[in-house]
C-alpha cells in the first residue's frame, strides 16, 4: 500500500520521526508495526507504530533509528515521496488482557529505540482510565527521545542513562526497582538483555506484563516462519503471534 511522507525529521543524530499519510485502518493496537519498503532494498524494514490516526485517509508516525544501510537510506527520503508500506502487523500490546488481570497502574519500560511503541500505548491506557508511569532508558543524554512526548501526556516519566548524563545513572530496572509497589503491571519494549532484566524485575515483584520482541523478518505477516520463537505454549511467530508476548508464555 502506498503512503505519502509528510514528515521525516531528525529527533537526535540517529533517530528520525517519519509520518505517513494513507490508509491506517488495519492498526488496532499500539505496539503493532509496519513493514516499510525502502527503495533499493529487497526486504522491508519492520518499524513499530508510535501513534496513528485510524482512517482511510489517515496517518501513522514511526520513530526509527539509523542502524544499517536500510534505515540510513530511509532517513534520506524527502517529504512528499511515496513509500510502499504494509501497516497493521502483529498483535500489539493488549491492555484488555491486563484489565482482565485488574491492573490499574501499569509501568511502561522502554529501552532506546524500543521506546516509540509505548507512546501509543500510553495514550490508550490513559483513555482507558488507567494511571501509567513511564521509565525510559538510553545510553547517554544525546540519545534521549520522546521524554517530552510522554510528559505532555501528563504521566510521570523517569529517565535513566548508562553514563548518568541525563536522568538517573544506570539501567531502567534500577529506576523501576525504586518504583516497586507503585505499579501492578508492566509493558516493555527494548533490547533483549533489557527485556530479560525486566522479566527478572517482574518475577521479583510478582507483577505480570507484556513484552515486545524483535527478530529478523522476511514477510512480517506470518507466511515464512522466518521469525519463530519457542514459548511455553509452543512455537510462535514474532511477526504474527507477536511481537508482544505475555510474561507467562515467555521461556527464560
Amino acid at each position, binding site marked *: 500500500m502506498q503512503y505519502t511522507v509528510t514528515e521525516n525529521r531528525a529527533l537526535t543524530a540517529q533517530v528520525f520521526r517519519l509520518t505517513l499519510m494513507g490508509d491506517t485502518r488495519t492498526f488496532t493496537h499500539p505496539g503493532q508495526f509496519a513493514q516499510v519498503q525502502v527503495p533499493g532494498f*529487497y526486504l522491508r524494514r519492520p518499524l513499530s507504530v508510535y501513534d496513528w490516526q485510524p482512517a482511510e485517509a489517515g496517518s501513522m508516525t514511526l520513530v526509527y533509528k539509523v542502524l544499517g544501510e536500510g534505515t540510513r537510506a530511509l532517513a534520506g527520503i524527502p517529504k512528499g515521496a511515496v513509500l510502499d508500506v504494509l501497516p497493521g502487523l502483529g498483535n500489539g500490546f493488549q491492555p484488555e488482557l491486563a484489565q482482565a488481570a485488574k491492573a490499574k497502574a501499569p509501568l511502561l519500560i522502554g529501552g532506546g529505540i524500543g521506546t516509540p511503541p509505548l507512546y501509543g500505548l500510553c495514550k490508550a491506557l490513559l483513555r482507558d482510565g488507567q494511571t501509567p508511569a513511564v521509565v525510559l532508558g538510553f545510553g547517554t543524554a544525546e540519545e534521549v527521545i520522546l521524554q517530552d512526548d510522554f510528559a505532555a501526556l501528563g504521566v510521570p516519566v523517569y529517565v535513566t542513562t548508562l553514563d548518568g548524563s541525563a536522568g538517573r545513572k544506570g539501567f531502567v530496572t534500577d529506576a523501576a526497582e525504586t518504583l516497586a509497589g507503585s505499579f501492578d503491571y508492566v509493558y516493555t519494549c527494548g533490547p533483549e538483555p533489557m527485556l530479560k532484566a525486566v522479566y527478572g524485575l517482574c518475577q521479583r515483584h510478582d507483577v505480570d506484563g507484556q513484552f515486545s520482541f524483535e527478530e529478523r523478518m522476511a514477510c512480517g505477516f*506470518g*507466511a515464512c516462519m*522466518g*521469525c519463530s520463537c519457542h514459548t511455553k505454549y509452543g512455537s510462535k511467530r514474532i511477526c504474527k503471534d507477536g511481537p508482544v508476548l505475555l510474561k507467562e508464555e515467555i521461556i527464560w
Partner: protein
Amino acid sequence: MVDTRVTLSGIELSNPVIPASGTFGFGQEFRDYYDINILGTFSFKGTTGEERFGNDTPRIAECTAGMLNAVGLQNPGVEHVITHELPQLATFFHKPVMANVNGFSIEEYVRVAAMLDAQPAVGWLEVNISCPNVHGGGMAFGTSAENAAAVTRAVKAATHKPVYVKLSPNVTDIVSIAKACEDAGADGLSLINTLLGMRISLRTQKPILANTMGGFSGPAIFPIALRMVYQVARAVKVPVIGMGGVTTAEDVLEMMLAGATAVQVGAANLVNPLACKEIIEALPQAMEKYGIQTLTDIFGGAWK
C-alpha cells in the same frame, strides 16, 4: 481474450501462477490480501513426518535483490496438516492444492507422501529433495542422482497422485539428476529450490544466520533458475514447474519460453503479499504485448 490455462498432469489450472512452498504457509495469511482462488494452485509449506521447530533464529538475511532463509522446515507435522490445516484450507480454497513432501529418510518421505496422497484436496505431491537448511537429510537426496531416483521410486510406489520431484540447484549436473527422477517414474519436476548462500555481519564479524548458511532466493537467482529450467525441460518429457526469482508476468513468460509448463513464485510473496495477484492480473496484458494468444503456445519456444 488470451488463454492463460495450463495443465499439470491432467489437472487444468486457470493460470500458471503457483506460490512456492514455504512462502505461502497454508494459505491463511494471504486471505487478508486477496481471494487466493485466483491462483493456479499453491504449494503448501514443506511437511515432515513429525512436527519441527526448525533452526535457531536469526533465520533470515537480506541480500542484493534477494534473501537468505534458514527456516529449516518448520512445520506442524503431517498429522496436524491433515487434521487441522487442510480442513481449514477447504473453507476458503476450492482448488486442488500441491502438497510439499519432506523427509529425513526414504521411509519418512514415503509415509508423509502416502498420508497426503490420501487427501482429496491434494492434487499433486511435490517431493522436496533439495532443502539446503537441514542437516543429515534433505539436501543429500537432491545432490545425487541415485538417491534422487530412490526417493522418487519409493514415493511413486506408495502413491497414486502425480509426483513432482523438486530439484536442488546446488549441483554440477542438474540434467542427470532430472533424468534419473524421470526414469524412476516422476510425473514432473519442480526447479529450482534455493541456492546455498551466506552473509556475514560486519558488526559481529560472525555469520548472520544462526545456521551459518541458508537458501538464497529472489530476483537475483532468476538467470540461474532459467538456465536450469531450459536445460532440464529440453532433456526430459515430463512437465517442469519453473521457479527461482520470478517476480513479474514477464518473468513467467520467460520461464515458459525456457520450457516451464507452470511457474512458481516464492520470495516475491514475502516482500509483497499481493505479488501473485499482481502477476496474474498483468499476465494477459503482457501476453498481448508480445503477441501471445495461448500461453501453451510459447512452451519451450527458446529451444524449439
